[in-house]
């Protein structure tokens, strides 16, 4: 059974060491994108499907290129200043 992980906190994933992971800098709660962002939600799933075939080295964490630009929610969450 193959697994493909997503992560939004790379330093934690580096300690857990899943077989394969993709990292993206989204706020908690918005792993696959923003409300109504169907295209990005789909694309992140596609990225997972492509990565599971490509990644060969155990413990690999690759960065996804998507940036959360609509607000600073992620930064606030990382400082425990927002939910």
């Amino acid at each position, binding site marked *: *059974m193959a697994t493909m992980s997503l992560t939004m906190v790379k330093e934690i994933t580096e*300690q857990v*060491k899943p077989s394969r992971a993709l990292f993206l800098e989204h706020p908690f709660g918005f792993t696959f994108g923003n409300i109504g962002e169907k295209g990005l939600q789909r694309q992140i799933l596609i990225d997972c499907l492509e990565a599971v075939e490509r*990644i060969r080295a155990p413990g690999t964490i690759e960065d996804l290129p998507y940036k959360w630009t609509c607000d600073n929610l992620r930064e606030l969450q990382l400082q425990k200043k927002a939910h």
Partner: protein
Amino acid sequence: MNFAAVEREYIRKRILPDFEWVVCETPSRINPLTKPVEECRVALVTTAGVHRANGPAFDIRNKTGDASYREIPNDVSFDDLRLSHVGYNTRRVSQDINCIFPIERLRELETEGVIGPLNHRHFSFMGYIPIAEPLIKETGPEVAEKLKTDRVDLVLLAPA
């Protein structure tokens, strides 16, 4: 910013004075796909705290976390899904649960033949589990065994 350090100190000061993250010495083994993606049975496992409207919510009042899980039928009505989690704004995300549990996007990929059949069930944990032992020894292996029983080829593991 190292969120792991921020969260560690937060939990130590308020809940568990000796809290530490679980560290694995070696990476999990890579299991390659045994068939093309378009033939794979796919399941989604999330830590988003997804549950059904008429089912039990996760215990978000327990400061020591909740290691239980919920089975989410693949044919669940989107309107039947609810979120209970301490780590993000569930009210806001409830406007479009695909943000965190993209079941509608997965159904579209299945219909288009990008993936094989979706498994008849998916699974949700609630990602605040500072005491990890029940997850590691009980509920995590339970879900893994169910996925094996279901003959799932590919598991997508998505955090909240």
